[in-house]
């Protein structure tokens, strides 16, 4: 920290060669791990390597992966949200409960989405308006949302109408609809983050909020917007999960926050903000599915999966920090 590099060479330091810029980045690591995971899983079980099966397995986490894409943007902006999994559960419960009470389906969907938006607004209020650290705030809202879902649904599972069931069985060109939605959302968000002015500003806020403020970027507005979008998308994901499962309980995607954070981290999103890509999270979502599906189909204990998840998370942040430290100088 207090060391300094020799002065005169600094200014004249050559730019990193293009291959360095393209290859030395966390996404490359994610991609390599993905290939490695594919090969490893194929060795673990002869039943693994089957596109249909992998796609079906991906549908099981597609909702969470979609949320993780938005979460990536929140993390890049320098905040974090640990509550989207609980938000998914609560929105889905509210949706199912409302329609169970006789409200027409489309209106119930809207109510569910609005609930998610309200949850996003609560997070935004506490972390941006009240300037409390979002990580602690969202631990609080995580417990709160999950608790409310429990109050609403108790231990019951609330059924959704048959006509609403089966989003995962809708195939588009042989690909389950949730996967298609995930890919589309990834492309959309990738475009927003990578090619629009707002996307650029998200990186700038996450890199240095003060500098962004001084450059006339309305950091608060953008962050509030991100929390709201995250709330809304979480709700949509929760309702998608309801359609896939046919019923809703308060424990929907219990503990999913860990997986979502893991997807973002594994994709190279920097926990302190300012760095990361949608592509990284996109790859990481597949990586996680392949790792966990490979282990499940090999009938490995879920214990091993938990352990692997924990290790992956820690290794991912260490590796990301390391790569960024190397490329930042």
């Amino acid at each position, binding site marked *: 920290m207090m060391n300094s590099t020799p002065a005169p060479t600094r200014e004249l330091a050559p730019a990193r060669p293009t291959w360095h810029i393209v290859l030395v980045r966390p996404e490359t690591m994610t991609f390599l791990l993905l290939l490695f995971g594919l090969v490893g899983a194929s060795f673990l*079980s002869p039943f693994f390597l089957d596109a249909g099966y992998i796609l079906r397995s991906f549908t099981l986490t597609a909702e969470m992966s979609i949320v993780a894409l938005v979460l990536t943007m929140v993390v890049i902006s320098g905040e974090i949200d640990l509550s989207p999994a609980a938000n998914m559960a609560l929105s889905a419960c509210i949706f199912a409960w409302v329609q169970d009470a006789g409200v027409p389906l489309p209106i119930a969907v809207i109510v569910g989405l609005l609930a998610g938006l309200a949850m996003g607004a609560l997070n935004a209020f506490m972390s941006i308006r009240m300037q409390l650290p979002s990580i602690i705030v969202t631990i609080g809202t995580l417990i709160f949302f999950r608790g409310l879902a429990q109050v609403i649904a*108790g231990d019951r599972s609330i059924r959704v109408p048959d006509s609403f069931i089966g989003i995962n069985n809708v195939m588009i060109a042989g690909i389950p609809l949730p996967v298609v939605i995930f890919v589309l959302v990834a492309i959309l968000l990738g475009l927003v983050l990578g090619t629009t002015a707002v996307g650029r500003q998200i990186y700038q806020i996450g890199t240095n909020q003060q500098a962004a403020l001084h450059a006339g970027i309305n950091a608060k507005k953008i962050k509030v917007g991100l929390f709201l979008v995250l709330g809304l998308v979480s709700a949509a994901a929760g309702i998608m*999960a309801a359609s896939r499962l046919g019923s809703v309980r308060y424990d929907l995607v219990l503990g999913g926050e860990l997986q979502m954070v893991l997807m973002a981290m594994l994709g190279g999103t920097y926990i302190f903000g300012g760095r990361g890509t949608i592509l990284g999270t996109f790859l990481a979502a597949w990586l996680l599915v392949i790792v966990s599906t490979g282990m499940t189909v090999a009938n490995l204990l879920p214990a091993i999966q938990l352990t692997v998840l924990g290790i992956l998370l820690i290794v991912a942040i260490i590796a990301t920090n390391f790569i960024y430290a190397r490329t930042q100088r």
Partner: protein
Amino acid sequence: EDIDIVFVGKNTGNPYFDSLTQGFVDACEVIACNFEFVAPATAEATSQIPFLEAQIQRGVDVIAISPNSPDALNQVFQSARDQGIIVLTVNGDITGNEQFRDATILPTDFTKVGADQIEMVGSLIGYEGEIAILSATTEAPDQNFWIEGMNETLANDPKYANMTLVATVYGDDQPEKSTTEMEALLANFPNLKGVIAPTTVGIAAAAQVVQSRGIADQVKVTGLGLPSEMREFVKDGTVEGFQLWSPYNEGWLASYFAVGLKNGTMTNEVGGTFEVPNLGTITINEGNSINTQAALTTFNADNIDDFDF
């Protein structure tokens, strides 16, 4: 060709399933089947789905499962059966969605559990006084079914006319909550004579409260529990008697039935019968439901050491 059977438990680390699994394992050493046990880390509604998908992918012949949800698994069951996999629910059913499984194997005739439990507590308190129920979760389907039976028995059988059910509370199958609920029962109903806890976590928690307060002679605890967990309380006199069935036999029977079905030596017709070693003749009841034993086993100081689950 051996039949591949997989049993998907509610969650790992649940001692109840250790014994049940052992039944499968032992049966598959006798008859032509391969057995594997898998279970998610938590008993959450959807956590069994990836495991089911994996079994479908592996192309097993029979999936036996203790379902964590009465309806969230329907879609997966459907696709399993579309592939010709036999789906058996074991130790719990998907009530209201029976069309998604082939048969259910339940440890005993659940319609009789309520009456048996009332008789049990009645015998302990001299058929007189206030009783309460400490159940699992508010929505637990089996427990609610039994509690309904208890209420009916109390209302209709004159033998129990002097017994009043003062409260039904729920400990959510968590030791902490079950304990505070039990304490609240004792506080709210000072004249309480007996407590039925038809769930293994609840009965242990209730017994512990009574043990710690030293009021075993005033409040009788009974219900459904595992001998291994209750042995201590029976030995020190905290609990005089409680009931359960044999989880082991469920696994044993399920294996025989599964292999029989797959080989075509048994059929899945209501009213049909088949033979299972050690268990005798088994009948397929209404709703493709099979029971491993006719009535609950009662455990007390005399016989508790004979059971090791």
